[in-house]
């Protein structure tokens, strides 16, 4: 049977790097507290299952991610806990270590970030630390793979010796006063609730004294549980939580004093950078500068790769035209369906990868928590939380993980609000549509700026909706803002690359599966049509009479007030399945037409119903882009909203309000832009 290893540690200690090095898998290293909410598993040596628990500071029941970690340890009983400690900040990291010790589980410690500690003249007496903690301590630099072999060797040895680091189960001894209370509670438990957490009775006693909500809830459900609670209240003073925290830190200070030396006066690069990134006057302008530069960068750097792919596909198309019979169905499938439709999507792969590269870089650098610090006041005014800000930022990549990352937000109201407004943050899949059409509003040179304006509009709508939800629908208190401003780290090429690849891979998978299926479906729908002479369905009719056009014509009346053509409607309808296929739909429908200046020009030429003046086209195109920005990101997003809120009502709200606002704004833009005159 395989053994379970659970990795645990504070956020930002390089836990995911340890995970990757142990399992040899690629993973995700983020510098933001709370990103690793998903449970991640991997294999070490084929016989160990390694589980990456969320990064947590404590095991209190008030936060979901801390509960996930705690429940896993208490209920799933992993065979060994690997607690990762940050050598540059050992004192606070040991607090979690002591909470784990109270659980009396087999444990080993990994002392990570030893390179940074060395640079700061921090000296750690590792042997002494291991002695005082009563469990092995292994120094590592996980990001470079240093010390990982020692960790693996230790783990193997522990299991082959069959001793499971027994020493670590020596319980922490507190002062006599506290110990007395713990003992009395234990006796009460033994007498009245003998089956309640019988293997962790001391821990249960401590939690009862601390008035831990979760343990109280659980014991209340067991027979005589209420009696225990009542009896404990007789001798408990109510300040045990307080006293225990103090005593833990006293013991920790003792250990630190014996094993840890640091230069007090050391100024770090992080201190220097914070002087400017968090500056009173410059902090916010710099924040905006960084955001703008990132989008500009994404757009420019991916351009040559996109051009290259387009050139390649063009050459492939020419080759096929020459080599294959012109009227065969498969020539049409490959030329119109795959190269025309799917190819249009593939051309944007570099763009999406660059976007993820930029996001991964920001995340790994440690700037995101500064952004939250700079923006919290604003978020707070909107009734949101600094943590919401990071979820919103993640939405720039993809709204689905962004919605899922909301689990780290403690208050239910904040969480629902953040989930519901996230869809307004423009994800990577919408970008191809902006790039395709953005150049036709204020000219080619301003494409970047147009795109920025759409992103900005999304943010504004998100803010307004947050205000609406928070002030009108949920009127709760915002959770406290407790955020560690960790050190800046130079993102390594390896981990930023892995990080980018992991997210980009999702896009490729989606492109490979959903998008490919949808594109082929669209091709079939386009190839089958109603023969105008016979009135029957036939293969290879005029595109105007195809089923795809039929769908467009069916939905077009809905968009008639916006003066959008059936082609525009097809883009919207299929974009609901996945935004990536909007461009593909255009590529497919217009595959037969010739336009030397590219697909974008062709689309713009076909986007409006007849009678819209050329001068009003920029407004109409912009209105279209605004609608693409604001209506439901995709079916999968709705699925994620349903999963996270567990409510059909909120899922419906998410779907409808986006469409409504998008529609109204497009109408207004049309009005201002003179589409109706």
């Amino acid at each position, binding site marked *: 049977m395989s053994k379970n290893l659970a990795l645990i540690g504070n956020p930002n200690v390089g836990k995911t790097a340890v995970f990757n090095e142990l399992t040899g898998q690629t993973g995700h290293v983020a510098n933001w507290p709370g990103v690793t909410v998903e449970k991640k598993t991997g294999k070490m040596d084929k016989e160990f299952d390694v589980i990456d628990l969320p990064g947590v500071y404590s095991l209190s029941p008030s936060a979901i991610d801390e509960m996930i970690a705690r429940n896993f340890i208490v209920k799933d009983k992993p065979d060994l806990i690997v607690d990762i400690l940050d050598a540059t900040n050992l004192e*606070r990291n040991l607090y979690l270590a002591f909470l784990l010790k109270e659980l009396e589980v087999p444990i080993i410690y990994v002392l990570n970030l030893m390179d940074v500690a060395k640079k700061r003249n921090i000296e750690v007496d590792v042997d002494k630390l291991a002695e005082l903690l009563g469990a092995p301590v292994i120094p590592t630099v996980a990001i470079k793979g240093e010390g990982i072999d020692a960790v693996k060797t230790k783990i193997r040895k522990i299991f082959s010796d069959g001793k499971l680091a027994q020493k670590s189960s020596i319980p922490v001894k507190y002062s006599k006063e506290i110990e007395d209370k713990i003992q009395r509670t234990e006796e009460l438990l033994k007498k009245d609730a003998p089956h309640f957490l019988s293997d962790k009775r001391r821990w249960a006693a401590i939690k009862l004294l601390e008035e831990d909500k979760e343990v109280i809830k659980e014991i209340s459900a067991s027979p005589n549980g209420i009696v225990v609670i009542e009896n404990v209240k007789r001798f408990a003073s109510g300040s045990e939580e307080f006293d225990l925290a103090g005593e833990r830190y006293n013991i920790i200070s003792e250990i630190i004093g014996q094993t840890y030396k640091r230069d007090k006066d050391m100024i770090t690069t992080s201190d220097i950078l914070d002087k400017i990134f968090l500056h009173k006057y410059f902090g916010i302008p710099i924040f905006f500068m960084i955001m703008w530069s990132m989008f500009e960068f994404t757009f420019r750097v991916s351009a040559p790769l996109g051009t290259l792919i387009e050139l390649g596909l063009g050459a492939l198309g020419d080759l096929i035209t020459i080599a294959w019979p012109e009227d065969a169905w498969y020539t049409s499938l490959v030329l119109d369906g795959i190269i025309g439709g799917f190819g249009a999507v593939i051309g944007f792969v570099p763009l999406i990868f660059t976007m993820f590269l930029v996001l991964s870089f920001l995340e790994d650098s440690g700037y995101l928590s500064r952004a939250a610090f700079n923006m919290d006041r604003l978020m707070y005014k909107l009734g949101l939380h600094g943590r919401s800000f990071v979820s919103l930022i993640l939405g720039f990549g993809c709204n689905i993980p962004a919605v899922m990352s909301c689990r780290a937000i403690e208050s239910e109201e904040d969480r629902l609000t953040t989930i519901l407004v996230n869809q307004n943050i423009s994800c990577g899949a919408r970008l191809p549509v902006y790039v395709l059409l953005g150049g036709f509003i204020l000219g080619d040179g301003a494409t970047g700026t147009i795109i920025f304006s759409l992103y900005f509009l999304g943010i504004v709508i998100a803010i307004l909706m947050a205000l609406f939800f928070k002030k009108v629908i949920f009127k709760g208190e915002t959770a406290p803002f407790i955020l*560690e401003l960790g050190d800046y780290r130079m993102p390594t090429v390896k981990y930023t690359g892995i990080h980018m690849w992991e997210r980009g891979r999702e896009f490729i998978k989606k492109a490979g599966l959903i998008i490919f299926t949808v594109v082929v479906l669209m091709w079939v729908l386009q190839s089958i049509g109603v023969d105008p002479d016979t009135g029957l369905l036939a293969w290879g009719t005029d595109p105007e009479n195809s089923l795809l056009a039929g769908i467009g014509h069916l939905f077009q009346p809905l968009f008639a007030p916006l003066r959008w053509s059936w082609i525009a409607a097809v883009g919207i309808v299929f974009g609901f399945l996945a935004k990536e296929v909007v461009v593909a739909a255009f590529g497919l429908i217009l595959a037969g037409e010739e336009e030397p200046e590219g697909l974008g020009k062709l689309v713009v030429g076909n986007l409006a119903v007849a009678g819209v003046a050329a001068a009003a086209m920029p407004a109409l195109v912009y209105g279209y882009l605004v609608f693409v920005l604001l209506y439901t990101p995709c079916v999968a997003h709705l699925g994620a909203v349903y999963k996270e809120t567990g409510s059909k009502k909120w899922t419906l709200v998410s779907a409808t309000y986006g469409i409504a606002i998008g529609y109204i704004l497009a109408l207004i833009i049309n009005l201002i832009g003179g589409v109706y005159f």
Partner: protein
Amino acid sequence: MKLSELPFNTQAKIISVDKKIISRVAAMGVIPGTEVKIIRASPLGDPLELEIKNYNLSLRKQECKLIEVEKI
């Protein structure tokens, strides 16, 4: 005095922490007896950045009002 009233860059010691937030901040090192210093406020005035136990922690003024400190 309250932590929210402490002048910037002044070393102080925590005397008490309100029960409302103790379970949340204890793990971050905010407990009686610990030394604390306010380094700066966010550009918009709130939250505050504190130096505590050799690392940087950010708390809103609202929470800082629940923490009693004395200058040292």
